[in-house]
């Protein structure tokens, strides 16, 4: 059944269809609709889950950790400051190898207070060990929820799906709503062998000496590396049931492109419109959307970008004192290919619009820039 719904509700429907068993969350703009609708669904029986209304995001993640440790499917949603408050427990979920799914609505971090989108909240969680999947549309957002649970549960790793504040969270689009009966064909019930169970008692997470810790971290990395194949396989399985899939990355008109713009989130849609326009003008330009940021699909990205002459990365984020965060990753994906200049552009922080004009400005700057000495170019800053 198709419905016109906001991105936040797309998450809720995805959670409903995935039959999450324990939900715990704390309100924060612009995430709140996700859990409001889930509360309603819990209340009216649309979903058989316990909703723990905690007093903070830190506790939301902690509650999910407890629930997931008990062997149940656990979900939370947050944004910005909330995600940052969770930080400690994000690490905990990874170290504990718990398949929790979190929806983060990308919102800028204060101060000053800003409720509008940018990616610095999620990308500053880059190194905690969560899978990160950036969604572009409400449909993709909904569909990514059951995919996320399946990936998480297969690898015993937590998965974060990310959507832009307002441009997606509050924007209404037509979504083909998935139902649990269909999803069950794709996502089996979660029943892990190891869980908190008095019949098979274990102590989880106690003190490990230097002789043991590294191996446990090695296994997390191994799960991340396996993750790329698992994501692809899960995406294929999803496609078999629902006829839709999203991949790790999404190249657009890249085959013969001399210059490729690299984007993520809703900027990718706008970028595609600019690509079409510039292609019409005879420019050999393409775009690459990065959907899966962790694990980072180096090989797939290299396969696309290594055929280009120049790469421009649009970052809705900034790693202060360094570069845009996607930019760094793309640079390292192209390591050794000094013949392909990579240019970094910072745009759209704090919810500033990244319009077709902005993208065209970036593209034209990249084309004209013969010898890029600056790896970081701020677009639209009032200087």
């Amino acid at each position: 059944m198709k419905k016109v719904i906001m991105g936040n509700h797309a998450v809720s429907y995805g959670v409903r269809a995935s039959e999450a068993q324990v939900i715990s969350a704390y309100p924060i703009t612009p995430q709140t609709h996700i859990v409001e609708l889930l509360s309603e669904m819990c209340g009216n029986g649309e979903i058989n889950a316990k909703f723990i209304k905690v007093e903070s995001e830190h506790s939301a993640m902690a509650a999910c950790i407890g629930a997931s440790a008990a062997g149940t499917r656990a979900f939370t949603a947050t944004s910005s400051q909330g995600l940052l408050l969770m930080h400690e427990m994000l690490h905990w979920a990874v170290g504990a190898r718990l398949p929790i799914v979190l929806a983060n609505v990308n919102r800028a971090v204060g101060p000053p207070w800003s409720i509008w989108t940018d990616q610095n909240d999620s990308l500053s969680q880059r190194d905690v060990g969560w899978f990160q999947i950036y969604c572009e549309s409400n449909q993709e957002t909904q569909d990514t929820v059951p995919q996320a649970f399946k990936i998480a549960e297969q690898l015993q790793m937590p998965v974060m799906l990310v959507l832009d504040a307002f441009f997606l969270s509050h924007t209404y689009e037509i979504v083909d709503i998935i139902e649990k009966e269909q999803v069950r064909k794709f996502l089996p019930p979660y029943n892990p062998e190891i869980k908190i169970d008095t019949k098979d008692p274990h102590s989880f997470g106690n003190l490990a000496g230097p002789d043991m810790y590294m191996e446990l971290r090695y296994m997390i990395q191994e799960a991340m590396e396996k993750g790329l194949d698992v994501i692809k396989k899960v995406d294929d399985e999803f496609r078999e049931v629902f006829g839709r899939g999203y991949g790790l990355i999404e190249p657009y008109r890249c085959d013969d492109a001399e210059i490729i713009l690299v984007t993520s989130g809703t900027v990718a849609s706008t970028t595609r419109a600019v690509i079409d326009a510039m292609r019409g003008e005879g420019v050999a330009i393409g775009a690459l959307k990065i959907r899966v940021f962790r694990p980072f699909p180096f090989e797939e990205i290299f396969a696309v970008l290594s055929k280009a002459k120049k790469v421009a990365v649009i970052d809705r984020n900034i790693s202060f004192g360094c570069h845009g965060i996607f930019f760094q990753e793309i640079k390292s994906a192209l390591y050794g290919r000094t013949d392909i200049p990579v240019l970094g552009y910072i745009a759209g922080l704090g919810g500033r619009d990244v319009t077709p004009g902005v993208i065209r400005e970036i593209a034209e700057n990249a084309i004209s820039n013969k010898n890029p000495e600056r790896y970081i170019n701020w677009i639209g800053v009032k200087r």
Partner: protein
Amino acid sequence: MKPATMPTEELMGSGHLACQGCGATQAMRFALKALGPDTALVIPACCWAVIDGSFPHSCIDLPIYHTAFETAAVVASGLKAGLEMRGDTKTTVMAWAGDGGTFDIGLQSLSGAAERNDDFIYVCYDNEAYMNTGIQRSSSTPVGAWTTTTPVTNYKREPKKNMIDIMAAHSIPYIATASTAYPHDFMRKIAKANTFRGTKYIQIFAPCPTGWKLAPELSVKMARLAVTSKMYPLLEITDHGQKLEVWKDFEPTPIAEYMKAQGRFRHLSDAEIAGIEKDVEAKWERLLAKERMLASIPGL
């Protein structure tokens, strides 16, 4: 041999990493005996994060979830919710935290869970300072005590936080204090707590010989003197904070006997100890007055 005075099944085994004479370890053993094998534990950062043993070994033959410092209560909430969703309504979830993890950093999530009245037993083993990190003051540290962050030149001037009143303000079904010197009383309270649905809070006085500069063999004696000197009243609060029962059936002992055995109070003069005693006596009288007052309200 006479019948055993407590259950003989040992869910906590030897070889653990507790210091000599550790009250927290005695308390754990008693609690597990009271609850039996249908129990899952949540342990945040505290001495017990270490006492349990080193990966992949545990001294406790029960499921334990070790978690971050401030999350004992809420992980217990999540765990209980998860167990119930799995159809397991039999397992008792017990959060087991030190005073730092309860009075200080864990207070927020404990308050949240208690307000929601999530169904678990929360035990705070109270050794009155951050012992695992090397004896720093917590809000549970009593007035006059030395710790590494309240040196004798600047010992703690502030009274111990009244955690019991804070918990009582949450209207949870059961609150009690206990002492390792009275294991049968503690076990009874744990078992009683387990008969209520909702959040149950038990605070057990658990001496730390290492942190109190105390001969380990005096561990239990101090736990007893804390009670008989009225420093640490044993009480129960039921009826969602409306009924208070204070244990009074003991021979009172002078506070000096309690304080002078412990190095953490060695710097205090007799006059200072007398001042503390006066304050303790006043608090005790207020507690008894409160007990009478609550008992006098009709309809309870």
